[in-house]
């Protein structure tokens, strides 16, 4: 995703915590106007990567630039363009929800009161409650409100929906789609709930052990991996199926279910025809793609 208009550029970023290589020579460009799904197992380096972007972490080697400024030197001017929801979001427990909103909004000249009120209504947030007394789900809703109400150009969501109930998650995804209608906005979302993420993302970053395994559009990824079901039309299936890039295979004598990579629909039909099989092709879900790439 190399782009001259990138709002975030990471060059040879490495970061080590003791014996753990959290980030390993990462190169990345993030262009505006996308919803990027950042996927990876626990400890893959997702949160570390996101924290480098906003300058909370500093790399051991390499350089991270956000909005054209070294992430370590981000000033209020640049940070006012970034919204961040953290998975262990720190909020000020002694304030009421209303007070916390007033406190955070005081820092932003472009705080959108209408959006704030709409969000409070839509997500059923009780503004009189004390922040420390909120349930994890309510805290997460509040953290999201604080991150979006000043309409940031870059919204970084680190496990934002893990504590939300299904209805709130659905509304949250709608909200993301609403936010991205402004072409200048960019959202990076890291989540383990892949069924939700796949509804909104248009770009994927898949990480494993501090490295980026994939950095491509979601459509390209969906075209790359397909699941095919081969059913023999006459006798048993051949012992060796004529596919080279098989990611996963489950078969018996007459039927095989394969996950294959880098084949066009025509190629797959031709291969099936050659071994006298009926073929059924279906795209993979993001979860299945993730398992194929990172598993």
């Amino acid at each position: 995703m190399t782009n001259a208009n990138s709002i975030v550029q990471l060059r040879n970023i490495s970061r080590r915590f003791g014996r753990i290589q959290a980030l390993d020579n990462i190169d990345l460009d993030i262009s505006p106007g996308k919803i990027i799904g950042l996927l990876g197992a626990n400890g893959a380096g997702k949160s570390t990567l996101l924290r480098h972007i906003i300058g909370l972490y500093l790399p051991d080697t390499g350089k991270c630039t956000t909005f054209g400024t070294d992430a370590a030197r981000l000033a209020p001017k640049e940070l006012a363009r970034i919204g961040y929801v953290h998975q262990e979001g720190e909020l000020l427990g002694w304030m009421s929800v209303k007070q916390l909103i007033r406190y955070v909004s005081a820092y932003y000249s472009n705080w959108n009161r209408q959006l704030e009120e709409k969000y409070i209504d839509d997500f059923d947030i009780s503004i009189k409650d004390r922040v420390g007394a909120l349930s994890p789900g309510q805290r997460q809703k509040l953290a999201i409100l604080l991150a979006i109400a000043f309409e940031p150009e870059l919204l970084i969501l680190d496990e934002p929906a893990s504590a939300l109930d299904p209805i709130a998650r659905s509304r949250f995804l709608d909200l993301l789609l609403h936010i991205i209608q402004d072409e200048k906005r960019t959202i990076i979302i890291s989540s383990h709930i892949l069924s939700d993420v796949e509804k909104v993302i248009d770009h994927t970053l898949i990480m494993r052990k501090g490295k980026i395994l994939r950095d491509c559009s979601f459509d390209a990824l969906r075209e790359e991996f397909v699941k095919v079901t081969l059913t023999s039309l006459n006798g048993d299936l051949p012992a060796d199926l004529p596919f080279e890039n098989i990611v996963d295979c489950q078969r018996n004598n007459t039927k095989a279910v394969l996950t294959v990579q880098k084949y066009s629909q025509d190629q797959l039909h031709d291969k099936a025809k050659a071994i006298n099989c009926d073929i059924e092709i279906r795209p993979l879900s993001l979860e299945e793609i993730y398992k194929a790439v990172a598993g």
Partner: protein
Amino acid sequence: MTILQANLKHLYQRKGFWLIAIGLGLVAPMGIMAIVDGEQASFMVFAAWIYIAAGFTSALQVEVLARPFSWSLPAHAGIPVKFLFCIGISVSLFWSAAFLFYPAPTLAEHLLSSVSVFFAGTIFYWLGAWVVFRFPNWVSAIVLVPILMVYGRYLDLNALLERVIVDAWFAVILSGGLVNFLAWRHWSRPHMARKYCGRPWLGAFDAWNKAKISEFQQARLAQKNKAIPTVLPHVEKFFLDRITDRTGPNTAQYIWGGLYRSFGLIASRKKDCIRFWLVMLPLLCFLGYMGPGANILFIMPGIMVANMSLHVRSTLLVSGGRTERFWSALSVAAATTLLATAIVTLMAALTIPLQATMPELTIKGQSFVYRAMEIKLFFIPLCMMPVTLTIALIFYKYPRLMMGVVMMIFVFAMQVSWFLRILPIHPKEPGPIQIIIIITLILLCCWAIFTAVLRHICMRRCLVR
């Protein structure tokens, strides 16, 4: 391995408990020596030792009970009572054996006092256990023990204990048996596990664990949603008016933001302020009789500030960058130091008029004259607080180590000052100008180190816990 054995393993698996074991292990021989020599305070040492041991072992059990997983452990319901009895009987037997050396005229009295000590030990043990199980923040109950030990001698508590345990042995044995029976019934109740499962709880060694304390406070806030005061509207307005961005982002916004986060709630709690002085005034009346020891009040802010957050490693992202975090943290540190110094100095100033009014006390033939605190020591918190804050910034991940380092540095500083005083290198006392220069230099040095460390962390280090 039985479930009870697995629970008993906690006694050596918890590294923090080793510290307690070493402490109790060091005190026990002294207690035994006191018993053998028939010294005063031997009964007090025995009672306090068992009470403290009960506190920490019971805390281990509550920690297990508070974990949701222990609720679903099969056959775990009867373990707490067995665990507590195992320890209680063992420590009481130990002290009972020690009291076989208690100087008594006859063998029968030897044996009876020893048996009486055993049952008295179980009474103190169950008292300690009850306090821990009853109060969520039980550490404060343990803190009372040293105070009782120090002032117990004026109240003749040791003699009282001795009279009761040795002379009224029959009553002690009878009440000990009853207490043990009631304790067994109390800790065997079927709903024990349900009562403590998931309960907000500060463990034996959580006093310096900020995350645990924060979790505990959050849970307590949730329980007492309406009872706890919040920021007063005029306080909020005062700070928000200064934070609000009118002319574009500037550092002052973030300084006021940091001050609001640190002092917003404190400034709103007028009743707590009144309560503080209501507690402090009688304390000042008492402190004056401690002689130079009263000046310990000047050291307290330097220790108490160890757990204070300067919001350097905060993930609540407002639009402040690293530079803004630095100035905000520095301002909060300076404001806290000035406030604490002002309060302590005011307290010291209040002891001056008290000196003229407080009477001379005579307790057991010993005279106690009220002396005002030395107000000229006001510079101590000004120097100590940046040192503590520097250590807290460096050792933020290891709160117990941080506290240890803070204590070591201050003890070292006191030793050095004492050593310098006894060295014959100063033929005459330094004059006031010299003292002012020396104190100013120390003050500047402390603050320069703190500022340098804070700036290094804010600008060059990761800002996530």
